């Protein structure tokens, strides 16, 4: 492929400036690849454009089908879900909070919080605490005297 052939699409799309277009046109005269591609496309597009489309008015039938398939209450539900940012954000917030609160992991977090309090108390009583996992799930706080 010649270097000029790479400009075929830009030429076809009318995106070359005047000078480049003229250069490409001289290239076209001597390049069988680009010349035949251009002719083939011109003729093919002409044929496709000449095709007669005879649309049938389907509007009433389609609307009837749409409402049969999805009755009025469905449209009503759809309307409820139309963008209402404030309501959507509030609902999402409530759902997220409920979800996180119900997560088992969260109870663990709150359990840790309790242990943290105990640890702080232990430290103030000159004791160090260690958290141990027992039976894979139970947490045990072991208190030992702080070393001097």
């Amino acid at each position: 492929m010649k270097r000029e052939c790479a400009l075929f699409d830009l030429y076809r799309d009318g995106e070359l400036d005047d000078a480049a277009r003229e250069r490409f046109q001289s290239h076209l005269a001597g390049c069988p690849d680009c010349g035949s591609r251009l002719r083939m496309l011109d003729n093919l597009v002409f044929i496709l454009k000449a095709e007669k489309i005879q649309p049938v008015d389907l509007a009433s039938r389609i609307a009837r089908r749409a409402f049969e398939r999805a009755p009025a209450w469905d449209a009503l539900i759809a309307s409820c879900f139309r963008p209402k940012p404030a309501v959507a954000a509030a609902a999402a917030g409530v759902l997220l909070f409920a979800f996180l609160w119900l997560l088992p992991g969260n109870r663990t977090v709150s359990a840790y919080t309790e242990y943290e309090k105990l640890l702080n108390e232990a430290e103030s009583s000159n004791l160090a605490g260690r958290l141990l996992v027992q039976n894979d799930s139970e947490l045990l706080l072991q208190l030992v005297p702080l070393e001097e």
Partner: protein
Amino acid sequence: MDPSDSELIERTLGGDEGAFAELVRRYQSAVWGTVHRVLGSSSENEDAVQEVFLRAFAALGKFDRRYPFGPWVARIATNYCIDQLRRKRSRKVQLWSELREHEQERLLRDLSMERGPVSAGPGVEDSEGYARVARALLDGLNPKYRAAFILREVDDKDYGEVAAALGTSEVAARFRVSRARAELQRKFRAYLRGCGAKERER
């Protein structure tokens, strides 16, 4: 004054069947055009147009009315056509071989001519026959390339519009159109070689 698209959508969502019918009436020609050009002429086109609007109806609640309705429904139509082409591809690629020999030769001759069917003007006789053979050349193109080619070359859309209809970037739209042109050329040459071989055999 005619209600705006946005008003019709609002009324449709409120349960007004007539409003949706009016919306379909406004855009059905465009959808017919897309379906016909991308899928080809078929008795199934009515079903395709109906399905496009039923899909639009089902998604209407999610449509952002700050944007125009036309390009949105065009995108649904294009995606639907690409899906259909993917499903029917194995059957469609057979079309070329199903053509009668003289039809194949005629198409190839006309497409190669300096002044092929173009010289006959818009009133070209037997345009249906031409279209049938021309479509055979399009069949077998990757559906995405084919849809991009039709939108750009036949519907005269700019690349921004092609990208919007395909739900892709402008760069990707350009790439697909370019690939389609190159692929058509490759297929065209292969067919020409095939016909040349047949003539030599005679």
